[in-house]
């Protein structure tokens, strides 16, 4: 594969712009989902929230070939899907709820592969898992409750895969025995390249 930094930079800038634009639109939709968009005042609130994201202090970082804007888009979309699923849960539409739980997990996992603090989206799943367990204990075991807890667990695990995946690839590259010496972080209890790199280089 030839080296083409100019092509890479141009493609990266395009992708970042598209990512930021989509991120703005999805933030509008997300705000509307949470706070409603019926009254004029509500719509103005949603519009303001999206406008503020346009002039975000991240500035040129949302235009440059970096992962920030794509991450922003994926993260907001993950939240949107999850909250949409919560809405389905409260209106009794279990199938939609479960589908959105999984879809949201996949989108958060993609966000985590782009930027590792996407893992924080997993907190939604963790919180709901606790609530679902509470339901199970105090309101009795039922198929729907067990299924709900199951899908939360699967969704949350998918998000975790987004964190583990790239690190597994790095592990295969550095730690699997080859002719070059094995770095010391491979011998840690959790051989995480992220942890090592952050503490050693930054």
């Amino acid at each position, binding site marked *: 594969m030839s080296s083409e930094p100019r092509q890479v930079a*141009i493609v990266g800038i395009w992708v970042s712009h598209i990512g930021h634009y989509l991120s703005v639109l999805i933030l509008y939709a997300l705000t509307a989902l949470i706070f409603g968009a019926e009254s004029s005042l509500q719509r103005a609130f949603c519009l303001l929230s*999206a406008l503020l994201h346009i002039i975000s202090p991240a500035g040129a970082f949302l235009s440059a070939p970096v992962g920030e804007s794509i991450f922003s888009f994926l993260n907001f979309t993950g939240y949107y899907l999850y909250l949409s699923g919560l809405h389905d849960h409260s209106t009794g539409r279990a199938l939609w709820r479960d589908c959105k739980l999984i879809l949201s997990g996949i989108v958060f996992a993609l966000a985590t592969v782009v930027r590792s603090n996407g893992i924080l989206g997993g907190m939604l799943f963790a919180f709901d898992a606790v609530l679902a367990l509470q339901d199970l204990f105090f309101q009795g075991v039922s198929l729907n409750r067990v299924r709900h807890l199951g899908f939360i667990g699967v969704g949350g695990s998918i998000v975790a895969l987004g964190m583990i995946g790239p690190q597994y690839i*790095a592990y295969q590259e550095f730690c699997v025995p080859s002719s070059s010496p094995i770095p010391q972080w491979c011998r840690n209890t959790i051989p995480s390249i992220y942890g090592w790199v952050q503490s050693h280089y930054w």
Partner: protein
Amino acid sequence: MASQTVYSRLTLHPSLTLTIAFIAWKLLLLLVVVSSPGPGYDTSTTLLLPSLSDPHEQSIREILRVPLWRFVRWDAFYFVTTADRGYLYEQEWAFGYGYSALISCLKSCTLICDEFFLPSTRTLGKPSWTDF
């Protein structure tokens, strides 16, 4: 009142309002980046020099004058090098695998597209659709 109509128009067509605001802000940012003077605090972009095929760009002064390269600084430098040649050094792994993989994939697609649709473009020296 005129301000009332403007207000209601803005809120009734959010996608349009947001699109216009987005384009306006991006143009402003572009203007700021392009007109920023000097080589900048971070000159790591110049490390890309050996891999540039265009002889016109192969001096430090030239590379820092072209607006495109002003975006390839700080973290962007890491993302561009990993998307270009894959991960090599340990510290590069701090920069999201997903974004580099996506850009690398798209770069291959654009190169293939160039070959397919405009095979004589590069040899004739005419600009292709991805040229700035």
